[in-house]
């Protein structure tokens, strides 16, 4: 019987952290720009 490869849990955690940080930092910069008003 063919064995499925193990789920790469460490990779999932690291990429999840990377994605969360990307979203948080992106929206942080976005809301700073909005708070400064329109050009």
């Amino acid at each position, binding site marked *: 019987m063919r064995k499925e490869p193990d789920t*790469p849990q460490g990779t999932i955690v690291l990429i999840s952290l990377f994605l969360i940080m990307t979203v948080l930092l992106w929206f942080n910069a976005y809301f700073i*720009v*909005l708070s*400064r*008003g*329109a*050009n």
Partner: protein
Amino acid sequence: MSEQTQGTEQAPTSGEHAAENGEHATEAGLHIEKWEGIWLRIALVMTLVFIGAITLAALSFGISVPGATARINPATLNDEGSPFATPGIRELAPGKYEVYMVAQTWNFLPDRLEFPAGSEVTFYLTARDVVHGLKIAGTNVNMMALPGQVSTLKATFDTPGTFNYICHEYCGYVAGAPIGHHTMYGQITVLPAEGAAETAQATTE
């Protein structure tokens, strides 16, 4: 002769392999692993959300990027009739101003600006010699100053206070002299609306 015979025998063999591989690929189709598909979908959703947020900001809040309005020969900046011959502020209407600014090694003309709070200011910026930049700290104003191009950007200064502006494109220095890119800066003073002078002022030190 024997080599030629081997060569002719090998040709159909490799062709057979190609046919086998082709059949195999067709049967298997495009296979995407479970987590690969999940990450692809997440990245696609993030990209769409980011683009949507930028579009929303551009359309709803009027936030835009600087644009190039015209081209100008840097050698003619001081010619009669050129708006950059007398850089400074032009008042279009109460609370509406234009600023013609020249960036050059290593200062801005003018390097002191004063507006009443609530002023809507349109910057026209060009460079006399090399590439410079204009970044007004604490605001969204961030422009390139290119020789030969007039860059423009509109900004509204609602909050009284002082806003320093700097050159943010490295433009050189003189070895051993206390001048250079790092000394290229200016300052905007936004005065409270009730106590402000009737018109804005621009000076150059």
